[in-house]
């Protein structure tokens, strides 16, 4: 039946999209760790992976959007789903931008701050992964959405906290002001991934209530 065939194709595309964003978060962590560990090959591979993943995510979200409109599916939740896809796509966009900035500007991160950057990348990656799980639940098991949202908020706060203490440490050091500002900018870059995840989480909380009615 065409009705169910379309829905099956779309279900798969949405799942693929979320898988791609989730994988993007893992690549982000890999990339930062490679950069900090001076692993040029590993970092280059992460850049190449994220480029592919980002364009795949873009393609999938565009296809899903077109499908939803063309077949006028889920009229009640179409706007929400499109909003969700666009905002989730922003996470992987952000990841790509961050990694590229590392590649272009090659910030000099002293050894003493490596641990802070590692933790920050971890928290951001966890927040992104948790929001992907929540987004998946929105489609399959709406009551489970809330169960993961608290994780997103938790990791976002942790990222905030780590970034804050990292920046304080940087500015308390004897580094040149330009270097301090550069490091702060990169801490912010890594932290922004968790902020994007939280933006999606905030929307999801409302969408889930709407779906529950």
């Amino acid at each position, binding site marked *: *039946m065409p*009705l*169910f065939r*379309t*829905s099956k194709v*779309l*279900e798969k595309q*949405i799942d693929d999209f979320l898988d791609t964003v989730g994988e993007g978060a893992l690549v982000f962590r890999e990339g930062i760790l490679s950069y900090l560990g001076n692993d040029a090959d590993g970092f280059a591979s992460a850049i190449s992976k994220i480029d592919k993943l980002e364009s795949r995510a873009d393609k999938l979200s565009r296809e899903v959007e077109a499908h939803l409109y063309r077949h*006028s*599916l*889920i*009229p*009640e*939740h179409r706007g929400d*789903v499109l909003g969700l896809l666009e905002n989730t796509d922003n996470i992987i966009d952000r990841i790509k931008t961050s990694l590229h900035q590392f590649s272009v500007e090659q910030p000099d991160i002293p050894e003493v701050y490596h641990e802070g950057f590692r933790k920050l990348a971890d928290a951001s990656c966890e927040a992104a992964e948790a929001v992907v799980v929540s987004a998946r639940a*929105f*489609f*399959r*098991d709406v*009551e489970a959405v809330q169960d993961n949202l608290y994780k997103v908020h938790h990791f976002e706060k942790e990222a905030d906290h780590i970034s804050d203490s990292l920046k304080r440490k940087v500015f308390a050091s004897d580094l040149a002001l330009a270097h301090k500002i550069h490091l702060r900018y990169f801490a912010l870059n890594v932290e922004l991934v968790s902020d994007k995840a939280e933006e999606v989480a905030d929307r999801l909380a409302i969408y889930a209530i709407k*779906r529950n*009615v």
Partner: protein
Amino acid sequence: METLLFLSSGLFLGWSLGANDAANVFGTAVGTRMVKFHTAALVCSVFIVLGATISGAGAAHTLGRLGAVNALAGSFTVALASALTTFWMTRLRIPVSTSQSIVGAIIGWNLYSSSVTDTSSLTKIVTTWVACPLISGVMAVLLFLLVRWLLKVTKPHLLRLDALTRLGLLLVGAFGSYSLGANNIANVMGVFVPDSPFTDIDFFGLFTITGVQQLFFLGAVAIGVGVFTYSRRVMSTVGGGLARISPVPALVIVLAQSLTLFLFASESLEFFLASRGLPTFPLVPVSSSQAVIGAIVGLSLFKGGGIRYKVLGEISLGWVATPLVAGVVAFLLLFVMDNVFDQKVQTVQEYRLDAAVQDEMERRGIVDPGLVDFMDLTYTNPSTLKDNLEKGTDLSSKQVDLVLELALTGRWEIRPGVIARDVDKHWLTGDQMAALRSLQGQSFDHAWQFQQALAAASPQWQARPKAATNKIWNKELSSKLSFLYRVFRTDEQDE
């Protein structure tokens, strides 16, 4: 040509029925944007046509409600009044019961022609306003709880749920449209069957499309055109004007409506349950328009409001106004038809308490000293006879109605030619047919004498004792009898 002209008001009635009643089956589906209007209109029209021509043809022997009106110009006017009323309500975007507008218009004819109105038809209308929405509302809430539980357990993907809901809305809508066509075509076209301008078409001996089927097809097409051209207005009320509806509740609402109609109005279900010794649901007069509004209101109240009470008020007023307006419009139009266009809007019936009627009354235990004054008097106005009987005797109103029924006088001649030409052999049983043939050449002054002669000739013509399992038999029997009374009556046809 005259028949075609008269047919036009039946077609207009069909059109307005389509314009108003399609909302009951597809209003919520279109309102929630789950089914496009054109898809809904197409499915609705196709299934109305199928229902009317396949299942509705079974009702070809009944004249429908308008059969109470005993002159073609009268039927035309009553159908016109009913169609105008339904059309007006449709303009106001109010879902109303077309049956109630027909009953209202018939009451208008009863008043104009001094015929007696069966009071039960009035109580039925009022019961439908109250009981039907209540039952349907409760049904919607119960179904909603069930669906919510099912969704919790099965956890379908949002898109799978969307596809399932869409399919459900289309299926329920298609079934609803089929029964809409099957149940209403007799009301729209039934009265024109005896004067049908169509003849049977034989397709190379493979199958035959009867004249009645062609007539019903025409009526069904009129309903379908009504759906396509004008049903959007009422759909907007049902599908969102009264309360905000989401897709799953939209499906629950149409399911609740169909279930209400099936459980509380289906004599077949009652027969099925009773014949297996199971308890039956009480049969109450229901209407799909009232049921769908009841389901929307019931579900919205359960989920915490969101009802636009102004719209609800307008709908309620519309329900009350429909039979009243139809009655008044019918009365006025009949006056115009009768006096301006000089058309015969009623056939005058004679009522006479002759010796045979007196014997039959005594046999049935109707004895009253006051009845002597009425013997051998001829009345042409049943209302006057009824009033006089109520004043001049101590009979109960039920007995008075029975006296009126017995006193109806005419001429019924069992002519062999009529049996061969007009009686459908497949409709009557073999025994019934044989009994009818055995009466060839006889004639009767009263319909009940004809019935008694048939009953004496075969037990298949006898009514069975009142019980849930016999209801369908007795109903079928009375519809066969009214058919025979109509075709064998000679005094009206001779005029």
